[in-house]
């Protein structure tokens, strides 16, 4: 078990394009770190540099207290689960799992004991004599995990391990991975582009964009206190709504209506600017008729025409189209494209209570929780309303959760 320390890591390919640019990241001993970002952001490249399958152009990579920049993958004592599992098709499940042990010349007796133990842990016992070709996707995935955990590696690396599974199985395996990691307490770096995996699995999440690290923090911190437009738009599904607004005193004039800034910190952030982008998460909206009077006072109501509604049983989404100035609309579209989407029109997504009777085409009265809005600088994308106090509090909370989980593991019998 070991910490992984990356300092100013750069990866440049032959054409000089930096796939990973000046990334510094500390993964603590026993921590579950998620690398997330849209396709092509360099997250897989970074993972492959940790394991040694990609050369490091510059910067320093440490595992434990050893610099491993030029150490061959086989000497780094890491184990990895590949996206397509990379099982050895000519070997049985038993031999697949035993492969790292065989290479380490482990005595037969011990190989049998450890493979059986691992197989038991992953419920593969009755499949040990089968070949990978005869297994289902989920079983193959478990074999790949077995091969990773069978030896005492310093860290586990996962490269989008669940992306080839169907949705239901993905959910089950996700829980399984989380349980396994908590139980073994091994340092883990996990690459994904999946929101849910990023939010649920990791102690901390690192968001990458075009090879540059944007923000590292607990899932809550990323969600509540994103540093910039990119992180705000990437974390959360459906995405945060970005509305162009002009500032008039302590009021923001948005396409949906005027919003009062009652929080002095937020008002101060917007002060002195002409145009800002206002970020409001879909769930910060509600059907005004369902909001009680006391709650109503903490926010504000606006009137907007609803274009389409989607009723899902437990919740309901409404789409509110709006007009935006051409330059900002282009910027928002660019952002949406970068986030692997392609938003054709400027529209706000609003999450309503499933009981709401707002219908498509209605001129609806919507309540906005103005305490939860963010203000971004349209030029730099920087979040002007990030609350450092709250960030520190969330950080302490995440650390406490991690330690209590680890404590539970150590106290557990066996």
């Amino acid at each position: 078990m070991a910490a992984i320390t990356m300092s100013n890591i750069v990866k440049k390919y032959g054409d000089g394009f930096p796939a990973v640019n000046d990334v510094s990241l500390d993964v603590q001993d026993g921590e579950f770190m998620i690398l997330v970002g849209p396709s092509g952001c360099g997250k897989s490249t970074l993972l492959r540099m940790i394991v040694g399958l990609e050369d490091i152009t510059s910067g320093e990579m440490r595992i434990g207290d050893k610099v491993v920049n030029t150490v061959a993958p086989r000497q780094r004592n890491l184990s990895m689960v590949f996206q397509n599992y990379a099982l050895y098709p000519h070997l049985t499940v038993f031999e697949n799992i035993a492969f790292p042990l065989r290479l380490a010349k482990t005595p037969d007796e011990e190989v049998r004991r450890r493979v059986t133990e691992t197989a038991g842990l992953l419920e593969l016992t009755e499949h040990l004599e089968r070949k990978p070709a005869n297994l289902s996707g989920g079983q193959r995935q478990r074999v790949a995990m077995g091969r990773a955990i069978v030896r005492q590696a310093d860290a586990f690396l996962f490269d989008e391990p669940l992306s080839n599974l169907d949705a239901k199985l993905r959910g089950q395996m996700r829980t399984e991975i989380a349980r396994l990691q908590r139980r073994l307490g091994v340092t883990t770096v996990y690459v994904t582009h999946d929101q849910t995996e990023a939010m649920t699995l990791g102690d901390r999440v690192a968001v990458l964009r075009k090879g540059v690290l944007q923000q590292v923090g607990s899932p809550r911190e990323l969600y509540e206190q994103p540093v910039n437009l990119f992180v705000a738009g990437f974390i959360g599904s459906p995405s945060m709504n970005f509305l162009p607004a002009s500032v008039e005193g302590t009021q923001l004039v948005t396409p949906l209506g005027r919003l009062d800034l009652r929080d002095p910190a937020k008002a101060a952030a917007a002060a002195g600017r002409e145009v800002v982008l206002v970020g409001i998460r879909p769930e910060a909206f509600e059907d005004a008729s369902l909001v009680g009077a006391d709650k109503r006072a903490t926010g504000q109501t606006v009137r907007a025409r609803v274009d389409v509604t989607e009723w899902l049983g437990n919740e309901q989404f409404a789409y509110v189209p709006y007009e935006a100035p051409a330059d900002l609309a282009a910027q928002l579209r660019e952002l949406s494209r970068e986030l692997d989407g392609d938003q054709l029109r400027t529209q706000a997504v609003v999450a309503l209570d499933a009981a709401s009777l707002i219908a498509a085409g209605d001129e609806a009265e919507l309540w906005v929780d103005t305490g939860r809005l963010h203000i971004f600088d349209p030029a730099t994308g920087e979040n002007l309303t990030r609350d450092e106090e709250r960030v520190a509090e969330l950080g302490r909370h995440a650390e406490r959760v991690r330690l209590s989980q680890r404590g539970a593991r150590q106290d557990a019998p066996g």
Partner: protein
Amino acid sequence: MESARSKALWIAVSAVILVWALFPVLWIVMLSFKQPGEIGNVHRFLPKKWTWENYHTVFATDLFTSALINSIGISLIATFVGVVFATLVAYAIARLDFPGKKIILSFALAIAMFPVVSLVGPLFNLWRDIGLYDTWPGLIIPYISFALPLAIWTLSAFFREIPWEMEQAAQVDGATSWQAFRKVIVPLAAPGVFTAAILTFFFCWNDFVFGISLTSTGNARPVPAALAFFSGESQFEQPTTAICAAAVVVTVPVVVIVLLFQRRIVAGLTSGAVKG
């Protein structure tokens, strides 16, 4: 109705192709069982009297037995050396990025297209000067060089099919490059290696031009060349039946090899390696 008709058509076409391909073989087999004097005198497909005489004759003649040993030895050595080389070259071509990769591949293709006959003359002179004429290496070397391109192309196609991740996984699991190659890549490429080996073996086994031009005695003369030196009982008698018997003897190993390994050749071992 439609399917019955198309089935009948399939059967008919297959029958025609089978007859077209197998009739000459059958004819040779029949000839090999006839008495030497029968040919030209008796006009019928089946032998008038079945006899093993021709087989006794060919195995009794030194010309044939030494040629058979030469053929087997030369083909096996050339195949083995050729396939080992081709495996290493193909692996490098499929996996590594190095300058001149394209040139090597196109060169290999150029060699394969080069007419063999145009090389025989110069080789004949060269081999006589350096003492390789009428020796095993004198045949093995040209066989390898002409069989290599085909083997390299076949094998590099096979290696390319094997996902990179296999090797990377092996490396992460603690294997050296050589261990990854031997324990993961070679077993996965086995069908390709067999295919290449069999193709190379057939090429060497069936060669006539080199065999007849670069040998002069039983030292190194392979069977296809030796057949041309068969003579009859008297100058008035053609050795046709004996030649046919010899031809059957050299065809048998080929057929046996194909039957033995066709499963191996066809089997796609890589299925199930990655998501499916």
